């Protein structure tokens, strides 16, 4: 295991200290908790957005704390949901009468821990509601299963619900627009290499020199299947066809595209993927309103990428374009 860290057991705390030292203009760390909150959070009289999850997905979620996105982010151990008491502290730190919306990625651990935190906050008469993001179309959906994972599409929820909250939308309005984003977002990814959780010290699976893992999650878990490695064009087509199979697009539809790097993939390769994604969408008459390319929701040093498509309407477009100022996501 090659990592630039100190003790594996301190990696999250070290990271948060380094993060709050880097971005004092945006965020501060709560003493004794692995929580970062907006610097200027006091008495904002707006709905507060709280998200979080296991660490190892940086810049998610701490990097999205700031104006127009999140008010607080809770960082669990690497790839492990934070505990309810940590989440509860985050809620308490940013809650006012306008209420709090929790943005949860759909993993059993996250859902249960956030749920328990929500129960704790409600017991203290804090107005809390939550949405669960489940954009990963690699996983078959069914009412009898855990359902789909939340992956990179979560950033669209942060951005758009964050803009609605910043515009002083009510808790139910912010929740409604978050649900709309969730309903209109599909994602899927592939990986060329696994990743190593610092505390575990070795990778969860191995891949042959000519193999790739399809339908990977973002926690080093194996994906739905494995194939020979393909060209960027083929990968783009494969991901897109699964995504569009899930949420078909018509000619003249408008979309936002995210080509997300999983941690070790050169930006160069993400742009190469976008070439095909963009061309394929255009061929179908779909209008690409905005494209986001980079490392938004990573999986430590995993090589690979995911593609997310969000179908837009006028409301979503204007919220996507609203000002945002956070360490990792800025719209001027």
């Amino acid at each position, binding site marked *: 295991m090659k990592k630039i860290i100190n003790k594996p057991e301190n990696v999250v705390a070290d990271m948060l200290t380094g993060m709050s030292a880097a971005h004092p203009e945006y965020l501060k760390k709560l003493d004794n908790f692995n929580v970062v909150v907006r610097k200027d959070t006091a008495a904002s009289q707006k709905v507060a957005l709280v998200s979080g999850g*296991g660490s190892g997905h940086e810049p998610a979620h701490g990097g999205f704390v700031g104006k127009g996105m999140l008010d607080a982010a809770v960082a*669990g*151990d690497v*790839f*492990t*949901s*934070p*505990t*309810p*008491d940590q989440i509860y502290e985050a809620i308490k730190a940013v809650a006012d009468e306008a209420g709090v919306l929790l943005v949860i990625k759909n*993993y*059993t*651990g996250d859902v*249960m*821990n956030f*749920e*328990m935190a929500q129960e704790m906050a409600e017991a203290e008469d804090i107005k809390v509601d939550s949405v669960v993001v489940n954009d*990963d179309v*690699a*996983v*078959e959906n*069914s009412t*009898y*299963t*855990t359902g789909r*994972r939340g992956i990179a599409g979560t950033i669209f929820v942060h951005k758009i619900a964050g803009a609605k909250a910043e515009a002083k939308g009510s808790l139910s309005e912010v929740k409604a627009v978050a649900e709309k984003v969730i309903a209109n977002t599909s994602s899927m990814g592939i990986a060329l290499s696994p990743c190593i*959780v610092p*505390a*575990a010290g070795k990778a*969860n*699976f191995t891949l042959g020199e000519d193999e790739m893992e399809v*339908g990977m*999650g973002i*926690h*080093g*878990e*194996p994906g*739905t*299947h494995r194939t020979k490695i393909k060209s960027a064009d083929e990968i783009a087509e494969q991901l897109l066809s699964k995504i569009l199979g899930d949420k078909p697009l018509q000619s003249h539809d408008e979309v936002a595209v995210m080509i997300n790097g999983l941690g070790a993939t050169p930006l160069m390769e993400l742009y190469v993927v976008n070439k095909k994604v963009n061309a394929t969408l255009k061929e179908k008459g779909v209008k690409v309103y905005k494209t986001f390319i980079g490392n938004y929701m990573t999986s430590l040093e995993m090589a690979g990428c995911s593609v997310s498509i969000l179908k837009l309407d006028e409301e979503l477009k204007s919220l996507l374009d609203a000002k945002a100022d956070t360490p990792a996501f800025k719209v001027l």
Partner: protein
Amino acid sequence: MSLTSNQTILLLKEIGKTLEEHKTLLTELDGAIGDGDHGINMNKGFTAVTKKLDDIQTEDIGHILKTVGMTLVSNVGGASGPLYGTAFMKAAVVVAGKNEIDLHDFVKIMEEAVEGIKMRGKAVPGDKTMLDALEPAYNTLYQAVEENQPIEDILKKVKDAALQGVQYTEKIAAKKGRASYLGERSIGHQDPGAVSSYLILDTIYKTIRNIKD
């Protein structure tokens, strides 16, 4: 047979040792179909529990189990934290105020624990989770206690039932938890949570056998 508070604490610490010994096994099982941290999670949780139990001042077994549950919830994270945590917290209620517990208490404890896990995780048997070890173990326990079998036999059958449940998880596809994302690909692997549940029940059997001897 009955267990005092001190014996309960001893038993809980023994569980902690077992989970520590099997940390790598559980993590590797989770690596195959999950995110490879179940052993780390359980060990982290029970290390915290053991530390808490070192200082605990009460004889109230309900209080002891509640402390275990809350310690698990606030230290583990992931899926197993709220699940095992809720199990202990729910179990605590039925023995609140007791300084000694017997087999009938253990039946109620197990019942509440299984209920708690179902409530929190919304899984059913056959979903390839810890429930597939715990539910048959509970049924066996209930039946054997009804039949007034000797305690060692009972606890042995209970942990054997859990082990059978573990083996069953190997044959089925996961519907809950991270392994469900793998679909059919999860077949052929034991569920790590079912294994940790088995290990806990096995430790209960062995520890109580030793106490009795």
